[in-house]
């Protein structure tokens, strides 16, 4: 039988695909997105690991797809970057062909289509969040199998296991920006605290209808304190 892993005998070159897969960079992660009164907030930690080694301690897991639709990536960095790039291409084309930007639901459904049809090959857990002209702020989650779930807020990644209780207890509908950012920050602080695969800084992106995306950064050595440092997008 053919050796699928490509292990060769004696002096051949070893190409062990299984080993390569294990060495892949993973976003063992804490990510989340919420709806609030004026739109959505996306949040993420910044740790990327290969095994126990931190390959990147200031990763940006919040990825822009269109002007007003972003996603949080978890799972394989390579897979989720590829998927995000493909979806960005499709949505740019959509806007050119149809003369208006795609809805958040459309964006989420393209993510889902790719994650579902390629479920055997992908390790991708993606949150899609954004605002559109008809339905305002929306949050969608696409977990491993490629199902699609809309909700008022969603959490994902390895660190999320530790904050189900926190989020369920402290969630309120229609929070203002300050309350919303506090909710996201406190949740991610707990996730970072308890999950070894999550850590580093907390990044947030705020999306409001008709406004430019707004980035926020919170640093661990400042105990993630307010006031947030605004950065121009």
């Amino acid at each position, binding site marked *: 039988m*053919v050796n699928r892993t490509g292990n060769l005998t004696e002096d*051949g070159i070893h190409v062990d695909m299984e080993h390569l897969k294990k060495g892949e960079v993973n976003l063992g992660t804490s990510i989340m997105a919420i709806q609030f009164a004026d739109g959505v907030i996306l949040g993420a930690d910044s740790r990327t690991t290969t095994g126990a080694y931190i390959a990147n301690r200031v990763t940006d897991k919040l990825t822009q797809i269109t002007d007003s639709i972003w996603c949080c990536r978890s799972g394989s960095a390579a897979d989720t970057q590829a998927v995000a790039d493909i979806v960005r291409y499709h949505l740019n084309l959509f806007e050119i062909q149809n003369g208006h930007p795609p809805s958040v639901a459309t964006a989420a459904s393209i993510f889902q289509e790719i994650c579902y049809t390629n479920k055997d090959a992908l390790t991708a857990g993606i949150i899609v969040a954004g605002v559109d002209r008809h339905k305002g702020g929306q949050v969608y989650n696409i977990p491993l199998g490629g199902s699609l*779930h809309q909700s008022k807020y969603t959490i994902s990644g390895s660190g999320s296991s530790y904050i189900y209780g926190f989020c369920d207890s402290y969630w309120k509908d229609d929070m203002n920006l300050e309350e919303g950012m506090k909710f996201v920050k406190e949740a991610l602080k707990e996730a970072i605290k308890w999950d070894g695969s999550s850590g580093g800084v907390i990044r947030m992106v705020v999306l409001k209808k008709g406004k430019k995306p707004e980035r926020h950064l919170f640093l661990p050595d400042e105990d993630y304190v307010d006031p947030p440092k605004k950065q121009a997008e």
Partner: protein
Amino acid sequence: MNQFPHGWGRPRDDVYGAYDSSYLNSTEPVSHTQRPIVTGTSVLGVKFNGGVIIAADNIASYGSLARYDNVERLLQVGTHTVVGAGGDISDMQYLHLLLDNLLIKEQYPADDHALLAPQVHTYISRVLYQRRNKFDPLWNSILTAGADPKTSEPFLSYVDLRGTTYTAPALATGYGAHLAVPILRRHVPDEEACASLSQEDAEKLVEECMKVLWYRDARSGVKYSWAVVTKDGVTTGNNKIENQSWKFAEMIKGYGAQNV
């Protein structure tokens, strides 16, 4: 550009031997999904006099994590059919898409002909069986419930990821097949028993079974959806399991000799 690994400037062939690219041309079979990921648990269904009732809870589990508690697993298909799915939620959503397209195509001729439960059941069973033959199954077990708009004749059938189908006066998928079916069969052992079961009693029976599943199925939820199909169409609703019995816990002390 040569994109194959042996063109990447690898070590010299005379030192290390020729590159063995055999692993690129594997002759092994392609493998597909071998497990469900986000899952729903049991679906129950009982025929009664003039119709059928079907129920499923609203939990979608991720392993043992009750990941979502608001998932609708019953889908109305046309006017007189409801399809309930257990198993992988992503496959269920895909199946819903297929059924949606089926309904739209059925509408094209505008001949007032509508799909009823037996046709929907057969369609689903063919899809599932074809997928199992591709060794890429849709990981679901499904109940199709319906009633004939003219004769009131109830319809209830089962199909699973292998394309296995069967029908009975009362059916359940997943844990329900172990825990609920024995209870259901006690009330409706055969079609005659269904014919003398009232809708109200059928609803009570399903409530009771959902309660047992809530007690004993670790992947179940306290909130569930139900649908009743009669010749007049589909009625749906949401329920929460009530009249639970927990008080007796205070009688239970220790696990043997201890009694304080």
